[in-house]
């Protein structure tokens, strides 16, 4: 039977997945990105400094990653670098944003696929928020209307957590996480100007000063957030994992792993990074260096006038054709191969290609504790664990980076924008590898290209009929109810898709 999962909720944007189910096994899955805006065309002819602002509006969940990728690309085109303080401030802004995004994915977007929200009705304790939630759900359900307790209920049917105490505990943490994500974003915004959509990030640094009062405010927040990561977030991931161990082996994508690298550890954005860039072919123990020219984008099943595989920097004009293909998402390939990006890919690449031992050590600790192999991070639970480990590593790094900031020293490079130039900008959004490319002519943008995390993960089939990472992770999945497919939602949410990013 054919079942459409769209609109898939609890992710960013407009995703439909068309599945074919036989004997409760998904035998085919097609990811459809259903929203197109045409950013690359909108950017043509604009002033280059508009780019780090316009491209943030590709995605309001991970805007800072776009601001950084665009700033890096412009720095390459202008042949400039940021002063030490400016780079650190950019990292502080982006890092706190990563943490919020991981918490949001786990508690607000994914946990609802596992915990039993109705357990709140059995709550007998005295926590004010939980009492409020219990009384509210009770009163809403008493109205007898089907949707009265939305957005929490109704929900899909499935095998939710049976132990009410565990569900109630997780619900409490859902509510605390709503407050913690705010704080993490507040920390970003102290230097970023506001969140979402930072105004202070520019090629060459950040306009906010490296003031001691701002630094202490930032640090205090990150210390609190770090406490939540270690005391609550990681234990919650492990608790869910202990109840659903099968998901260490469910939802694996069938391709390689790509990371663009995250947090330059010095002023040079193309120098060593905390999380390495590189490519690991599936089940291979070595990482190859990241090569922008190894990336091609295909449109065999995408809604654009058909072009063969094209390299990013020389790609032709973007011409939409809604009558073609099945998705607005293009099919990016690395050396012609499918690649997963995101927290698991980032750790797998860093693990095999670590310039900085912190990541490998942290990953090893958890792999040993949970008796896992590195490639089991390529699973539903593996992606959640990767986010938790990443958040912990990032929080430690941010506290350390605070100490490296020199109050009073410059945070912005001075520069003149050349009339011509080109450059790549690479970073990791929380959900994976992000590439921006821009080329200037006569002082304005002649060409702008973005290859975005969910473009990789929710890619449609390419010209060789090879499914994208999420498609391949769904094919073969057992579903208890073919009509509702809670299991599919667990797989989808583990990728943390962002469709506004994927198509842009």
């Amino acid at each position: 039977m054919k079942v459409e999962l769209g609109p898939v909720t609890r992710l960013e944007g407009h995703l439909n997945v068309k599945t074919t189910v036989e004997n409760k096994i998904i035998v085919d899955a097609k990811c459809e990105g259903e929203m197109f805006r045409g950013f690359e065309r909108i950017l043509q002819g604009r002033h280059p400094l508009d780019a780090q602002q316009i491209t943030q509006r590709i995605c309001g969940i991970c805007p800072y990653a776009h601001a950084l990728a665009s700033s890096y690309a412009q720095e390459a085109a202008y042949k400039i670098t940021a002063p030490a303080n400016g780079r650190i401030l950019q990292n502080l802004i982006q890092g706190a944003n990563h943490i919020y995004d991981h918490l949001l994915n786990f508690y607000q977007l994914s946990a609802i696929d596992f915990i039993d929200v109705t357990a709140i009705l059995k709550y007998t304790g005295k926590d004010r928020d939980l009492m409020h939630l219990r009384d509210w759900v009770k009163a809403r359900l008493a109205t007898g209307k089907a949707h009265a307790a939305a957005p929490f209920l109704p929900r899909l049917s499935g095998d939710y957590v049976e132990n009410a105490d565990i569900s109630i505990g997780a619900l409490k943490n859902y509510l605390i996480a709503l407050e913690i994500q705010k704080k993490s974003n507040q920390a970003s915004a102290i230097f970023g100007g506001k969140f979402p959509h930072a105004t202070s990030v520019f090629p060459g640094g950040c306009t906010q000063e490296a003031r001691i009062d701002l630094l202490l405010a930032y640090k205090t927040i990150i210390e609190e957030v770090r406490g939540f990561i270690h005391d609550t977030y990681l234990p919650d991931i492990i608790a869910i994992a202990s109840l659903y161990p099968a998901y260490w082996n469910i939802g694996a994508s069938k391709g390689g792993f790509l990371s663009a690298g995250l947090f330059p550890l010095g002023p040079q954005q193309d120098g060593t990074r905390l999380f390495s860039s590189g490519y690991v072919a599936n089940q291979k123990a070595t990482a190859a260096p990241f090569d922008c020219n190894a990336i091609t984008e295909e449109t065999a099943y995408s809604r654009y006038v058909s072009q063969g595989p094209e390299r990013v920097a020389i790609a032709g004009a973007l011409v939409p054709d809604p009558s073609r293909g099945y998705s607005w998402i293009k099919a990016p390939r690395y050396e012609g191969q499918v690649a997963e990006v995101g927290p698991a890919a980032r750790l797998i690449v860093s693990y095999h290609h670590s310039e900085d031992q912190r990541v490998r050590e942290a990953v090893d600790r958890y792999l040993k504790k949970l008796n896992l192999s590195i490639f089991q991070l390529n699973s539903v639970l593996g992606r959640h664990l990767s986010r938790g480990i990443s958040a912990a590593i990032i929080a430690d790094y941010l506290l350390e980076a605070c100490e490296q900031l020199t109050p009073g020293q410059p945070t912005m490079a001075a520069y003149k924008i050349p009339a011509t130039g080109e450059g790549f900008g690479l970073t990791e959004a929380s959900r994976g590898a992000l590439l921006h490319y821009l080329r200037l002519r006569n002082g304005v943008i002649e060409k702008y290209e973005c290859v975005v995390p969910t473009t990789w993960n929710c890619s449609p089939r390419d010209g060789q009929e090879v499914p994208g990472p999420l498609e391949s992770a769904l094919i073969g999945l057992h579903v208890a109810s073919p009509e509702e497919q809670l299991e599919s939602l667990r797989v989808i949410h583990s990728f943390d898709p962002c469709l506004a990013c994927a198509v842009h």
Partner: protein
Amino acid sequence: MNEIKINRRQALQLAAALGTTFGLSTLPEPIRAALLPITADTAPKIIYLQGLSCTGCSISLLQTATISPLSSITTYSNLSFHSDLSAISGQQALALIDSFISGKDGEYYLAIEGAIPAGMPEACMIGSKPFGEYVAAGAKTAAGIIAIGTCASFGGIPSAEGNPTGSMSVPAFLAQRHIDKLLITIPGCPTHPDWVWHTITHLVKVGLPELTESRSPKIFFGKNLHNSCPRYHYFQEEMFAKKLGDFGCLFKLGCLGPITFADCPTRWWNGGSTWCIDANAPCIGCAAPTFALHKDFPFYRTESESRTKL
């Protein structure tokens, strides 16, 4: 774009809609709606749909500090559907949305984030149906429409010069379809959580807030940003930042405070901890009707350049 002014008739239409929503048989004047306490029954039901958007406004709403995120959706509103938070998904989500849009008049508010690809309906689909059709159908049954963010209010980046989708704002789309409906615009890229949650609360407790010509609540969008900027005296004393990263009035770097009407200078962002100017970042006019629309009107001025406009 045909301007629709909020007139007395529409204000009364809102009052009637509120009356239906609250089960009150008569509700003489919108001002009488005032004294309504917000309870689980009076809190407005909201169907929140996204078009050509980035979800930045939704994420901004989650940063609410003057009311808590939990109370925003359980005390001050009933968030009947929101793609980012709803437990329900797929066909059942579509059925939920449809039960409101095809249901009784005036039962709910339709909140729209994002612009509408009027020239290319396939550029935004929800469950294989064009997004614009949801807006058009919902506009008939909703008590009112709240356009959230600059894309929905004014068009924003998806509608910028050179866009391939024929994208437009909610007011422009409704005008094109000759749909006359109570409409409030709450711009900002993203919008500020206070602007939205306080407007929704105002609707229940006090009635329709006084609106500007572009239908935005005057309490938030009535004052010029430049004139109320804490750095205004630097402008008067001509102490200008000369390059990015400098302190001072940011006017010469292209600050768009002079064309922007929003209360950022007094409200600040992210729990009142920061805002663009305090980070020495020129205002880019993200709440202004012309935000990002024209290629020859860049956000910034650099030393060697001047804008062709402003």
